[in-house]
Structure formats: C-alpha cells, structure tokens
C-alpha cells in the first residue's frame, strides 16, 4: 500500500470522529505547550543570567595573577612566576587560547583645569583595546606611535577640585572634565609630584615634568551607564612602557619589583594578564591549566558554572512538570486509539479479508496516533509562542525576577523542532500497542453476521 493512501485513510478516520479527535489533540496541545513553555522559561532564565554576567564583562576572558607578585613591590618574590612577555607567549600556546594581553598598571596623576585625580593607567595589548566599545573617538592605527589614553565613561567620578577638594563623592556632582575636548596633563612620577606639593618653602622640590597626553576615545554610554570598561583609563602597553622608560630613565619604576639588592629588573613585570579563550565552554579548562602552571586565574565562568547548576535544576523541574501533562496526553491518545479499534473491529476484519497487509494495518493506526501527536505538537507550539510573547512583552517577568531587561521565554529552533518531533513520537508510542492489537484482530469478525 502506498504511503499516501495510508495517510489519506488515517486522516479520513480521524475526520470521521471530529469531536473525539479534537479532544485527544487538545490533550496533546496542552502537554506540548506546557513542556515548551516550561523549557523556554528555563532557557530564558539561563540566558538572562548569562547576559547579566556578560554585562559585567567579557565571559571568555581569564584574568591571571602571579602568586608571588601583585601590584607594589617588596616582600618575597619568586622570579619564576613573574608575568613577563615570555610567560605570556607560553599562555598563548595553550589550546583554545585566542589571545593574551598583559596588564601593566602605572601610577599617574591627571590634571585638567582645576580638577585632578590620582589613579592608575592600565596598559593593555592592542587586542584588548580592540574589545573596548568606544562611544567617542576611535582606536589609533596600529603604527601610530603616539601615546593616547582611552577613558571609561565613568572615569570623571575620580576627579576632584584641587582647591576645594570636593569631588563626586562629596556632592554627587559629576566633575566637568572633558576628555575629548580639552587637553589632559599627566604626571607619571607621582612620588615627585606629591613631594613637590607638600614640600615646604624651605626645601622646595622641583615639580616633575607634566606630559600632555591626547585622548584617543571614551567608552560608550553616558555617565549613568556602566560596563566592564567604565572605570579605567586604558592605553597601549608598548607605548606606555616606552613612556615610562623615558620618564624614569635608569631609576626604578614605581610598582615594578626589585631584586634582592634593590635593583630593578631589565624587563617589565606585568600586574596581570588577560587570557582570551575561543569559547565559553573552554574557559574553565584553560583556567585550570593556568592554575596548574602556578598562577591565580579568575573568570566569570566560575560564577556562571555555579549559577548554571542552579538554573539547570530549575529547568529540570519545570520540564518535568510539563512532561507530566504530556504523559497524561499520551494516555489519552492510547485510550482513544483503543476505543477506535474496538469500534472498527469489523472494518479491520473486512480489510484484512480483502487482503490488506498486516503491517499496513499497524502503520495505519500508528499514522493515526502519530498524526494526533503532530497536530497537537504544532498547535501546542503556536500556543507556546503566543504565551511566550505575552510573557515577554506584557508582563516583563524577566525584569522583575532577574533585574535585567530581556525575554524570559525563549523558544530556540531546536526546541520548536524537537517539540513537534517529540509530540509525534509520543503519539506513535501511545498508539503502538493499540496498533499491534488491531494488526492481530481476527478477520473472522468481518464475516460474522449480526
């Protein structure tokens, strides 16, 4: 028997009892919709969480610290774990690592008009700079050898008025510092700066040289927005190193470690390193390798891993609740099919006498129950989309639960496709034993005359 003939026959049998078919399909609709909605909520919750973490910073980034040296010099130092260019090249060779950036913090005092701030300038690689989303200005060309600063959008909060001493923390007024429009004067030799400022008139200390450093750009967003790059001042690490060598010449650079004799090393030791990983999945693996190499490594993924375990449980529970209703629907299908077979005993016998293959009879009933599953699956999916849309647009549950704007119900393509396939399979599984029963019905029933 041709498949199309089988299908036509199954469909005509379903059409024959519209109300019963509708009620059975309704069960599948409710079952499918509840599974899809529940799973979509789980996915939405998980995605919202990841998005929340993503807003805090790049999730494929691992921050590496040396155990023996962090920030200011002094104390026990172990040269073997210094973060140097050589070590960074080694990190680069780890599997799944797409890039490595040094982080070199340099003390600096920034001045513009009456406002000043004492802060760190963060020297990073060009790869890193390229990741910073700039709202104004743009990243300098790779061959541009002029030192430029890139300011976070909230950096002006660090500034205070030199005369009154009032800053953002005192009066909550944003200091009117203009990074792009007005020149910024920078002092790198901060020790000398403070000495000159607090020296009395009897032993005047000559103020150190000020450099005018141009602004390359400002991170996107207004002062009230924040992201991972909002609070720091970034610059190219190679240019920063050149600048520091030029400023301090042979003298030790503040923040760099010294050897046991108090002499500086001939190379720069970085405060941190940023390791970029190709995919979120591999972050923890890379992090583990870095730890094994004797460094402290941190990433957002650690937190996400934990949170994901929690949402995984929630997802499982939600999916389970949905699955129960689909299971009930499956029982409904099995029941309907049994009824249908009892009613059609004679008819089945007749087609068997007329030579319909037993497998065809079985397939006919399997198709029928599969078709119930299919219709229920499609309708249930449509309802899930509608309910999901309503939850996303009218209830803004995501906002209330997670504090992040975003869709709480998400139905990815695999869920949509999987739901329909699953509904069909459930239908066919429920129809399996009834169909076997139909297959083995005696043809004698057909010729029994009542």
């Amino acid at each position, binding site marked *: 028997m041709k498949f199309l003939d089988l299908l036509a026959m199954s469909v005509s049998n379903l059409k024959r009892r519209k109300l019963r078919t509708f009620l059975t399909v309704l069960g599948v609709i409710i079952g499918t919709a509840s599974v899809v909605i529940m799973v979509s909520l789980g996915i939405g919750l998980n995605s919202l969480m990841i998005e929340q973490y993503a807003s805090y910073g790049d999730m494929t980034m691992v921050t590496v610290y040396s155990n023996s040296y962090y920030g200011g010099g002094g104390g026990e130092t172990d040269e073997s774990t210094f973060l140097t260019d050589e070590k960074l090249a080694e990190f680069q060779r780890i599997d799944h690592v797409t890039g490595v950036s040094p982080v070199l913090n340099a003390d600096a005092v920034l001045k513009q008009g009456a406002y000043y701030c004492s802060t760190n300038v963060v020297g990073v690689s060009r790869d890193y700079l390229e990741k910073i989303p700039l709202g104004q200005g743009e990243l300098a060309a790779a061959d541009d050898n002029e030192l430029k600063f890139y300011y976070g959008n909230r950096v002006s909060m660090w500034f205070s008025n030199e005369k009154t001493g009032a800053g953002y923390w005192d009066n909550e007024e944003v200091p009117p510092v203009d990074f792009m429009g007005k020149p910024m004067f920078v002092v790198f030799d901060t020790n000398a700066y403070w000495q000159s400022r607090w020296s009395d008139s009897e032993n005047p200390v000559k103020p150190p040289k000020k450099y005018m450093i141009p602004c390359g750009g400002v991170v996107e967003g207004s002062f009230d927005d924040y992201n991972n790059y909002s609070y720091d001042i970034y610059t190219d690490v190679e240019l920063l190193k050149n600048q520091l060598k030029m400023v301090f010449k042979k003298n030790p650079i503040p923040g760099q470690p010294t050897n046991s004799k108090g002499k500086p090393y001939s190379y720069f030791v970085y405060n941190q390193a940023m390791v970029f990983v190709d995919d979120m999945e591999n972050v923890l693996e890379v992090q583990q390798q870095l730890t094994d190499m004797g460094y402290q490594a941190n990433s957002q993924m650690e937190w996400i891993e934990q949170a994901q375990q929690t949402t995984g449980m929630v997802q499982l529970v939600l999916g389970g609740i949905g699955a129960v209703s689909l299971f009930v629907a499956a029982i409904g299908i099995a029941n309907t099919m049994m009824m249908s077979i009892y009613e059609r005993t004679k008819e089945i016998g007749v087609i068997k006498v007329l030579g319909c293959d*037993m497998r065809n009879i079985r397939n006919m009933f399997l198709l029928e129950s599969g078709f119930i599953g299919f219709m229920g699956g499609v309708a249930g999916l449509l309802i899930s989309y509608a309910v999901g849309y309503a939850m996303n647009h009218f209830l803004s549950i995501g906002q209330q639960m997670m504090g992040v704007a975003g869709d709480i119900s998400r139905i990815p393509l695999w869920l949509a496709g999987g739901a329909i396939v699953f509904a069909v399979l459930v239908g066919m599984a429920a129809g399996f034993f009834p169909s076997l029963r139909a297959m083995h019905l005696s043809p004698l029933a057909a010729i029994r005359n009542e």
Partner: protein
Amino acid sequence: MIDKKTPIIQVKNLYKIYRVGETRVHALDGVDFTVYRGEFCAIVGPSGSGKSTLLNMLAGLEKPTKGEIVIDKIHIENMTENQLVEFRRKRVGFIFQSYNLLQTLNAVENVALPLSFRGVPKKKRNEIAVKYLKLVGLEKQMKHMANAMSGGQQQRVGIARALAVNPKIIFADEPTGNLDSKTTLEILKLMQQVVREQNQTLVMVTHDNNLASYADRQFRIVDGRIVKIIEREEAAKQAEGD
C-alpha cells in the same frame, strides 16, 4: 465456460474439529471435492452443517485441523497469517452477506479499496472501479456514500469490489441473505451473468436450495460431510420432474 481440465480448488480429506469443553465437535468430517476454472459452485446446507466453516477455510480465514486445500496449485493449509493475507490479496475476491462496505467511502472508493492494498495508483484504480461499477449497473451511484444506498445497490458494489482485483476465485457468503426476494433474484442473475462473462470462478455458500439451483454444481453438505453433488443438468431435470 467451464474448463474441466483445470482444477482451481482441490480439497482432500478436510477435517475441522472444535473442542467445546470435553467434547469434540466435528464441523467438517472428511471433505473431498474439486472445483474447476470458470465454474459457479454452490455449497448448500442447513445451518450448523459446516458450510461456513468450509468457506472460511477455503478463503484462508480459518485453519483446518487436518487435510489439504490446494488453490491455484498452492497449498494454503500451512500458511502463516501474513502469507494468507498476501494470498487473499493476490488471488481471492470476497462477497459478504452484510456487504461490509466502508461507510466513509463512496462507491468508487470502496471498489478501488482492495486495489489500493496492492499499491495500484489512485487514477488507475478509480478507472478500474468505474468500469466494474458500470458492469454491475451502478452508473448513477458512483459517488454515493455506502450508507446512502439500498441493500441491493450495496451488494452490487460488493460484487464489483470482488471482481475489481481480477481474482482467481470469488467467494460469496450468503450474498443475498439480507435482501428481499426480488432483489435476491436480480443479484443472483447478475452474479451468474458476470461470472460467465468474466470467466470467473465463484463459490457461493447458501442455505437455500432454490438459490443454489442457479449454480453449475451444488455440493450438498450435512453434518460436515458432502452428501450429494448435483450438476446443473440434473438440477434442471429434478425441477422438471417436480
């Protein structure tokens, strides 16, 4: 035209024994006969004589306890259920007492149904169905649903359905049992005529001697044994003699 040289059904020493509690009921008790191609045979007997059991076994719906059934040179007594279904699909047409048309289908679809089991494409099988419906005189009822037709009309559809697959043999189980006497006559004559024209073999079961007299040969069956085989000529003579 009866081809006396080509046996289409050969039954040898056929037994069917049912167990009812401790007692054994011999529904068929050693039956032997042969039916030739092109013949219209009637199996006649009172109810409980075992005639229906015999028909069921010939059509492969029941298994014999003992004995041989050879249809178109094929032994069917030891076939599995699957093989029997295939055998019926390829070689057997069936006319039922209660017509057994599918209520959801119209006349053409009902006649075409057994062809669809053979995988004949829809267009072709509908052509065949239309041809046979014309043959049984239902030009005007082609699109009627089964339950919108009279008993006589339904049985005509049943006959067309049996003929449509061009079987080696057609079985009819009390085909006029549910019809009034006028329609019974029409249907019988139709079957007789169609079988001749199409050169088909027809085995009909009935309890009515009068109906059986339309057959070329009658097998009288009582208590599971064939007691008498009457040729058409004899039957005519008998009728004259009465």
